[in-house]
């Protein structure tokens, strides 16, 4: 039986600098593997849509404008994403990766959470309401 068994911790605490992170003022470096915002690399994408099919949060839409010409628009709902990286694992072409530096993803406007990847004119076409031209692969 002892009393005040944590006295040494308490004294250490007085001397040491606090363990509290002063977050907005001091940012820690995220580990390399941290799963942040998803990035799509169109180079080798075949538009198979497996990423969208496996996404548990339905955060991905692959909009096929022209399958032969490989004109795809990759629509990514950041607010739905659960950052599980299943899409990265599902993609056989290795087109997807999650950035370890983009993790402060809060935004005041809901529109900011909708991200389009793809060639500029394709994205514009999609935004202009063109998706009717091609059907989204995602359900």
């Amino acid at each position: 039986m002892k009393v005040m068994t944590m006295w040494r911790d308490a004294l250490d605490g007085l001397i040491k600098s606090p363990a509290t992170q002063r977050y907005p003022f001091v940012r820690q470096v995220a580990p390399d593997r941290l799963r942040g915002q998803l990035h799509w690399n169109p180079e080798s994408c075949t538009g198979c849509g497996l990423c969208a099919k496996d996404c548990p949060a339905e955060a991905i839409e692959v909009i096929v404008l022209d399958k032969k010409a490989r004109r795809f628009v990759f629509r990514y709902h950041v607010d739905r994403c659960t950052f599980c990286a299943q899409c990265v694992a599902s993609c056989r072409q290795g087109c997807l990766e999650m950035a370890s530096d983009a993790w402060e993803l809060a935004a005041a406007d809901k529109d900011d959470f909708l991200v389009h990847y793809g060639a500029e004119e394709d994205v514009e076409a999609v935004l202009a309401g063109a998706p009717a031209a091609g059907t989204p692969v995602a359900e």
Partner: protein
Amino acid sequence: MASEKFVIPIGPQHPALKEPGHFEFNVDGEIVTDASVRLGYVHRGIEKGAETRNFVQAEYLVERICGICSHVHATAFCLGVERLAGVEAPPRAQAIRQIVAELERIHSHLLWVGVAAHEAGFDTLFMYTWRDRETVMNLLEGITGNRVNYSANVLGGVKCDIGSEQAEAIQIGLNFLEERTRHYLDVVSSDAMFLRRTRGIGVMTREDAERMGVVGPTARASGVPRDVRIDAPYLLYAEHPVELVIEEAGDLEARFKVRVRELFESYRVIRELLTALPEGELTTRIPRRIKPAETISRVEAPRGELFYFIKSNGTDSAERVKVRTPTLPNMASVLVLSVGHQLADVPMILAGIDPCFSCNDRMAVVKRNGDEQVWTWEQLRQYGIEYYR
């Protein structure tokens, strides 16, 4: 007035509960005379939802049953589905699953020590255990890429490898934690003031424990040798076993000691696995459609035995996923144990089983797009409004 029941409601929102549940304790002065519980405040319809998703998606759904022990849920599900599909994850993947599972146990137990200490009004222990828990959280983040809901699993294997860099970080982290854990074991088993709140409180005899069917550390603190890792080894627990940690006293002190002592077993087995990490692939191919069959998958979550019953029907989604989380059998014991105790001890007894309400409440209704059971946002909103009217 004397004959009237004086009911203390605890929950759904109450500082003692970190999650919603509703308890009613009848008290006579400070002594509890009766207790009842109402669950379901965090129903998310996960069992139903798992039926409407494909296996790949369902894995992440069940991983979100619990925020603390997410990895074991995914592991249990993956093991079950892999068995249904007739494939087995490569040994390296199994070892990594086991390492992550044990790291998760460390984080969960440290978290629990902190919460239980807070319930006892010993905030210094709470703060220090949680500070040290950051170590293991950082390790998990470094290995898997996330601090909670690690998503290390994928059907047929794991997503993340443990290289020499991660192994080294784990070793350093474990060395620090082991030293701290020794200190915490000393605190919970010798601090006179703290023992006044734990020794002899909430005693559950071995007979009671067996009769009430409790599982996990709660059972082991009452001398019931019950641990799935030992009884029915999965992953690499047969090759790299843990030793059974057991205490006989059955009181809160024993529950503290069991959990803290289990940490040493976790440290040991992680180190063992790191030195004997099998070489090879991380994943194996698994068919998307799975022939009709039934399987049972049991794993030892930090809180006790986690039970999965999965039935496939030849499609790419499950016919039925049944989850029995460890909190459900343990919860019944709280109601029995709290009777006759001081009201002041109730939060401690409740915390003693390490309850996880989210784990308990997992079934019911779910919305799903592109299905016959479509619920538009408007309908859902309307339902919400109606529900809370």
